[in-house]
């Protein structure tokens, strides 16, 4: 055993054993362990293989910035790759596997990449695999993908639930170390609504591995007491396992809470992760500081980790990372670590201090090598020795672990996500937080403070400012006394000279010093270029650990200050966030709102097949008897409507009630045709244009009383038309007395069409429906037998005698049932939007297939809808400009294939007969097409250059997508009842 558990040390519960497995072997850990601490306690230092060279790697941190110890956790569909073992909370039954190793972690064939490493230098993607181009997809990429990479996603659907939630507070505190706790306590006692978010499953931050005494108690006890007080405050919300990953506009923070990631089988009643949007009045960043690794030859062997990590494993988890630990440091942290290890009975091989002198004390009997360095290391799956160098003299020292400290970098990411750059400080030898205004402040070591007492004080001070800013009284909060602190100062050491093997800067991406040097030599020394060229700071850890070293190294190579090099751009997310959390409940059927028609139940029981149409599910067709194909059903429905009668759900049309003395004038200005003289009790077809003269939408508007209209829109444009009317009323003509409200959901609306529709409807309606008393375009309230008041409109989309009946939505199904019952003897059928489409194509009525945002009223043969007399209406002025009136515009025509069996499809291109098919020779396109059971062949509506003067011409229909080519005859776009005789019976 080299790394091992120390009895009864730390904050793990030594009485609660947790069994888990790693690469198929079963291990025991304790409650309170992370996967990494438990593996280390079992002497399993090797946890992964590196990305490019497949080098053996162990953890280098004990927290979220871990670049090496990435494992796959979970089984089957719950498999999650690239999980950091250093933050993965241990649970009973946890199954973890190593990644990027084949055939096994211990023996990996890919490590041969190490031998090929001269080929895999910086920019190798760009240089090595440039050509031949076809090789990229077929050879290089598959090979690289197999050799290099991280964990693999599984293909099964995620069985777990995710959700999103909002939270609101006066003050958000990010991080629960000494500064965060004091900030939350100060604000909480003052009565602010506080949210304290901590990424760890245990609150306390660095206090959990701190050996100094605070206010006379141990640091973890101080943390526990403070958290207990906070937990009792109704105005404070504590959010453990919650990573604040992004800072967005208007003080909204994004956070992800791992609700049930620490359970083998999560409860189905809760999400596994919850995405939080936290709207904060103010925020304090108390995210702490990251200890920097040292960049020396062979610095990536398993067993080499930061001094802070060594101390965390020791003090928090009761795990000694080795039996004989060496320390390499440029400051006080190394000495502190040696002292803590020594106090727990761990041997210290030596302290190698890069400085010539310091005031730090080594534990009794420990050898200190001043002005020393490490130039190489040895060992396979675990460190076995270090080659030290002092004034040119080498010495090999045996050890099985190394704690390194290269100084501290405040964790500033969150504050730099909205454009502000971190600020280099020569004094602190680190990038510090920028000033981002009064609402968001950093506290504690995130703000550059070093000692525990400074951090405690700073947390209180920053919260104090927040409390005063919102006008509350600050309660009394004492900053407790701290005993036994150490001096954490350090002397900069960015690169340890004399490396005999690769000195890694970015462990995860296998970027070493030579790569950065190469990038600089080849002109990619700019920090953003160097990142892409070397991949330093990419992938899951985004260089949390290595970036500052990389920047300083680039600075050294370019002979400038790190301030001049600057950092790469910081963006959300701070740590990876699962797609599941980002999607929340918006998955599968719930991915967007679904709208249900009041006649949905009626359609369902009549055998409807539904079709997604925007947010609606509309009944497409109704299969009856032996019908095998949708065409059989649609053909029957169409013929039956023209012969007898059919009932169709048109509830999805937009309905807008318009009121006001100036309602008529308003309609006159938003429609292109005249509306001033529409009589009460009448409906009129109307066309709306956009201001550029192109058709926007169409529909009917009915005048129900002097100052009350109901306007209908197409299903697709209901929301747009409503917004358009509101815009026109509120900004163009606020002086007009008009107001409106959508009643789309109030009414179930059904179209009853066909020669027998009057006879059927009359059985249900008290009012006289004869042509004389209820003529074409009549529109008024009627009374159904039984007393229900309905709205009836005699309008027709099919060209047949037809009515649209609107009843309060809750009665829709019952009324539709009654109509079907009343029409049974007349041969009524239910028909869907497919048949409706055929009926209107046969009649040459347009929909948005023709009104596609490019057509004018004249293009579709509706020039009579363009009032010449109105002084103004929306779209009037530009509708007459050159271009919209040109003679060679595409005009709507009808089309009939010359050979009866040719199927016409929408989207096909039109060309002159005899022309070689090409898009440049295009003369137009088929906008709508269907099989017409009435005509007995496929027919279509088409937009054709100067189409109206080409009636009778044979034209080539070319469908390149479906590889078909045939001739069709251009005809008038009306295939049924051109004189409209059926309408007026």
């Amino acid at each position, binding site marked *: 055993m080299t790394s091992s558990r120390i009895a009864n040390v730390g904050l793990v519960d030594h009485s609660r054993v947790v069994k888990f497995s790693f690469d198929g072997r079963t291990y025991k850990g304790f409650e309170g362990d992370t996967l990494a601490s438990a593996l280390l306690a079992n002497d399993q230092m090797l946890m992964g293989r590196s990305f490019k060279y497949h080098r053996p790697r162990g953890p280098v941190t004990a927290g979220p910035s871990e670049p090496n110890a990435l494992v796959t956790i979970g089984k089957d569909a719950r498999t999650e790759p690239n999980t950091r073992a250093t933050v993965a909370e241990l649970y009973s039954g946890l199954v973890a596997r190593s990644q990027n190793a084949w055939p096994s972690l211990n023996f990996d064939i890919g490590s041969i990449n190490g031998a090929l490493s001269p080929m895999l230098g910086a920019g190798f993607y760009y240089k090595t695999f440039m050509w031949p181009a076809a090789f990229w997809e077929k050879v290089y990429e598959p090979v690289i993908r197999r050799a290099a990479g991280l964990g693999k996603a599984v293909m099964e659907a995620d069985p777990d639930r995710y959700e999103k939630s909002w939270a609101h507070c006066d003050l958000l505190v990010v991080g629960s170390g000494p500064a965060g706790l004091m900030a939350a306590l100060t604000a909480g006692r003052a009565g602010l609504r506080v949210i304290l978010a901590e990424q760890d499953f245990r609150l306390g931050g660095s206090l959990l591995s701190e050996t100094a005494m605070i206010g006379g108690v141990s640091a973890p006890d101080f943390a526990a007491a403070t958290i207990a007080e906070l937990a009792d405050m109704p105005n404070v919300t504590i959010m453990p396992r919650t990573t604040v990953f992004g800072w*967005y506009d*208007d003080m909204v923070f994004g956070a992800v809470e791992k609700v049930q990631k620490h359970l083998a089988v999560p409860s189905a009643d809760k999400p596994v992760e919850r995405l939080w949007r936290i709207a904060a009045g103010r925020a304090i960043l108390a995210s702490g500081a990251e200890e920097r690794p040292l960049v020396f030859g062979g610095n990536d062997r398993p067993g080499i980790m930061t001094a802070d990590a060594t101390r965390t494993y020791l003090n928090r988890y009761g795990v000694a990372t080795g039996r004989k630990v060496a320390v390499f440091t440029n400051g006080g942290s190394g000495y502190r670590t040696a002292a803590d290890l020594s106090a727990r009975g761990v041997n210290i091989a030596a302290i190698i201090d890069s400085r010539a002198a310091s005031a730090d004390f080594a534990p009794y009997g420990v050898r200190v090598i001043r002005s020393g360095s490490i130039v190489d290391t040895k060992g396979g799956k675990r460190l076995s020795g270090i080659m030290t160098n002092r004034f040119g003299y080498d010495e090999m020292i045996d050890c099985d672990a190394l704690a390194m400290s290269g100084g501290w970098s405040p964790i500033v990411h969150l504050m730099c996500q909205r454009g502000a750059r971190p600020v280099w400080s020569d004094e602190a030898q680190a990038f510090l937080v920028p000033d981002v205004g009064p609402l968001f402040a950093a506290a504690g070591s995130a703000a550059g403070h070093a000692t525990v007492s400074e951090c405690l004080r700073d947390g209180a001070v920053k919260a104090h400012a927040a409390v005063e800013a919102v006008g509350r009284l600050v309660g009394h909060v004492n900053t407790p006394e701290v005993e036994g602190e150490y001096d954490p100062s350090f002397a900069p050491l960015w690169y340890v000279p004399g490396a005999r093997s690769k000195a890694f800067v970015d462990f995860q991406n296998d970027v070493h010093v030579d790569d950065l040097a190469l990038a600089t030599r080849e002109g990619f020394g700019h920090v953003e270029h160097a990142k892409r060229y070397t991949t330093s700071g990419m992938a899951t850890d985004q260089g949390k650990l290595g970036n500052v070293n990389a920047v300083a190294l680039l600075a050294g190579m370019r002979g400038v200050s790190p301030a001049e090099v600057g950092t790469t751009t910081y963006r959300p997310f701070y740590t990876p966030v699962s797609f599941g959390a980002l999607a929340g409940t918006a998955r599968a059927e719930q991915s967007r709102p679904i709208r249900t028609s009041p006649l949905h139940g009626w359609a369902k029981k009549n055998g409807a097949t539904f079709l997604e149409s925007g947010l609606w599910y509309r009944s497409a067709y109704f299969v009856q008897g032996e019908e095998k194909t949708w065409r059989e059903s649609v053909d029957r429905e169409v013929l039956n409507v023209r012969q007898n009668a059919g009932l169709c759900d048109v509830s999805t049309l937009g309905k807008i009630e318009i009121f006001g003395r100036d309602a008529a004038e308003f309609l006159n200005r938003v429609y292109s045709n005249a509306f001033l003289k529409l009589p009460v009790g009448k409906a009129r077809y109307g066309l709306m244009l956009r201001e550029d003269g192109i058709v926007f939408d169409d529909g009917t508007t009915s005048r129900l009383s002097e100052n009350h209209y109901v306007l209908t829109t197409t299903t697709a444009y209901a929301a747009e038309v409503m917004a358009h009317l509101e815009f026109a009323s509120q900004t163009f003509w606020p002086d007009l007395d008009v107001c409106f409200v959508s009643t789309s959901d109030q009414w179930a609306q059904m179209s009853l069409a066909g020669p027998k529709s009057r006879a059927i409807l009359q059985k249900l309606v008290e009012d006289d429906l004869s042509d004389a008393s209820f003529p074409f375009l009549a529109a008024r309230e009627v009374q159904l037998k039984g007393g229900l008041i309905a709205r009836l409109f005699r309008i027709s989309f099919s060209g047949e005698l037809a009515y649209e009946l609107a009843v309060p939505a809750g009665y829709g199904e019952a009324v539709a049932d009654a109509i079907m019952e009343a029409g049974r003897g007349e041969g009524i059928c239910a028909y869907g939007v497919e048949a409706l489409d055929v009926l209107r194509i046969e009649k040459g009525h347009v929909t948005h297939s023709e009104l596609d945002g490019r057509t004018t009223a004249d293009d579709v043969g509706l020039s009579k809808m363009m009032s010449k007399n109105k002084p*103004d209406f929306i779209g009037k002025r530009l509708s007459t400009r050159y271009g919209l009136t040109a003679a060679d515009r595409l005009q709507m025509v009808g089309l009939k294939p010359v050979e009866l069996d040719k199927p016409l499809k929408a989207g096909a291109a039109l060309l002159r007969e005899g022309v070689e098919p090409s898009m440049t020779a295009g003369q137009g396109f088929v906008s709508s097409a269907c099989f017409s059971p009435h005509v007995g062949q496929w027919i279509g509506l088409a937009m054709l250059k100067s189409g109206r003067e080409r009636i009778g011409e044979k034209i080539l229909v070319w469908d390149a997508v479906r590889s078909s080519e045939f001739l069709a005859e251009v005809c008038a776009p009306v295939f049924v009842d051109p004189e409209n005789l059926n309408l007026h019976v």
Partner: protein
Amino acid sequence: MASLITCPHCGRRPKEEFSIRGDAVPERPEAAASEEAWHAYVYLRENPRGAIREYWHHVAGCRRWLVVERDNLTHEVFAVTDAREAATGDAA
């Protein structure tokens, strides 16, 4: 993730409740105005960096059209006013 816009009628709301129409600076010309004036109104837009005026529609709230004055670089919002009040105010 979100931005919060303060509607004068509804208070602070996420941007998902709004739809943005665009530039609120051009004014609809008189019907008889020149084709150039109409062309400019419909098609021509300044594309300034910094302070802009836009029409926002509070579709999931009060359904009022609003004029939002904001900085398209920093996303700072300077003012949100009801478009009708802005329109009648200008007329007065």
